[in-house]
């Protein structure tokens, strides 16, 4: 008999997104621009992270009507964000038949102790992580895809680099360990032992790993791919730039041809202004998004 919502089916969609670019869009028109530029999926949200950051206040799930408008506009997968721990927002998004839920630190957390129990859902989840332990805890809760948190809405890639280097570096350490040592390491990582053992055996996370948070240029995207990311999310970087359609297309090309510097140079020509950006270091600690979630 057929079975829906298995881990293979949930993780399978993430496998199909690899090598691709997932773009934040706030309306149907932007979604169409993203699809025409070669985005492999879009993230539907009311405000891109740069605006959430500027506006302050409580950031929540988007209006279902806006999400439906985007679903009707494009044929590629549509993702939407819910607050950390807000399982009813997730139930609502699932009822809309969105393709992936991002339980995201970009929105204001709804629960300071518990993330969503993602095993209860048929729809797959992607979650942010800053290191290996956090990534494996999210997978333990049922996440079918992991992304770096980076520092969303800054246009500064430094935090995404830190997170992807942390995750891939910690995986290399696991690979070098004796199997006897993984028990203690799992305790240190505060991660489920079977996932630590599986990660050591595979030499990568058991699910797809994307980069998010601060990617603004084709070279940023290629940097993250060369560092071991399976694909990239671009949030504010596209629609906060001078020429979104051209920049979106260029980021898609650079993500595919990430080892080809000539190609990256070619697609980087004449893109106009990148998003203005804000150094992640200049942001007060209590305004950093990457610290949300645990």
């Amino acid at each position, binding site marked *: *008999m*057929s*079975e*829906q*919502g*298995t881990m*293979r*089916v949930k993780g*399978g*969609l993430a*496998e*199909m*997104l*690899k*090598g*691709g670019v997932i773009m934040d869009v706030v309306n149907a028109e932007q979604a169409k621009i993203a*699809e025409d*530029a*070669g*985005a*492999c*999926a879009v993230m539907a949200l009311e405000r891109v992270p740069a605006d959430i950051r500027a506006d302050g206040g409580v950031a929540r799930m988007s209006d279902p009507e806006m999400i439906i408008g985007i*679903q009707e506009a*494009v*044929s*590629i*997968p549509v993702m939407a964000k819910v607050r950390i721990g807000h399982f009813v927002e997730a139930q609502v998004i*699932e009822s809309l*038949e*969105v*393709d*992936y839920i991002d339980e995201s630190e970009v929105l204001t957390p709804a629960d300071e102790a518990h993330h969503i129990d993602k095993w209860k859902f*048929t*729809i*797959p989840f992607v979650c942010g992580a800053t290191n290996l332990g956090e990534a494996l805890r999210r997978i333990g809760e049922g996440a079918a895809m992991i992304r770096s948190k980076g520092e969303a809405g800054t246009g500064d890639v430094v935090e995404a680099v830190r997170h992807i280097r942390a995750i891939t570096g910690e995986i290399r350490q696991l690979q070098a360990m004796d199997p006897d040592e993984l028990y203690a390491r799992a305790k240190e990582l505060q991660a489920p032992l079977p996932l630590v053992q599986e990660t050591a055996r595979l030499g990568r996370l058991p699910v797809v790993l994307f980069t998010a948070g601060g990617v603004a240029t084709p070279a940023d995207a290629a940097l993250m791919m060369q560092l071991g990311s399976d694909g990239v999310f671009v949030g504010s970087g596209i629609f906060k730039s001078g020429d979104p359609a051209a920049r979106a*297309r260029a980021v*898609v*090309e650079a993500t*595919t*041809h990430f080892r*080809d510097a000539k190609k990256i140079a070619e697609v980087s020509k004449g893109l106009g202004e990148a998003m203005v950006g804000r150094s992640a270091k200049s942001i007060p600690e209590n305004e950093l998004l990457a610290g949300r979630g645990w």
Partner: protein
Amino acid sequence: MAGSTPRVGVLALQGAFREHISALQRLGADAVEVRTPAELAAVDGIMLPGGESTTMDLLLGSSGLREPLAAAVAAGTPVFGTCAGLILLARDIEDGVEGQRTLQVLDVTALRNGYGRQVKSFEGPVALASGGADMVGVFIRAPRITRVGEGVEILARLGDEPVAVRSGSIMAATFHPELTDDDRLHEVFLAGIANTSGE
């Protein structure tokens, strides 16, 4: 080619190319990523993986691969497409985006996202025409084959529906054998390459 390992290219513009490379390597093939016309020219057979067909369509154009790939397939180079790869091969597609192109070399009609959105994605038992145990078919926002042209052989079915087909040196499946450890369809593909290369 007799006696040497077949070199199989996996189109690596976007999608699940890593899993196809693993499956082909498990079967002893020399599997390589293909992103440029030069890389394509060096292979004996080509896999078109799953991914987003609209993304691959654009990247096929910009990478200069569309014409050489069409020429290679027309010249009889064995090709195997899964999911989005099947869409790329299909003569006709339903529910494509405006201007979306395919190679139009496999006489079937493919309905994009034929089962619905991701919540409707599923795994189910796929019966091979050659017999043996059912395969676990993983269907991810999968296309549906709504028309099978004359002379197109059905390799596998889900219930009554065709889900894997072959026409000459062209094979295609709507599901993802690369997401399981069951490599029987990849074996059929490699056997086809061995026959072609041996001639």
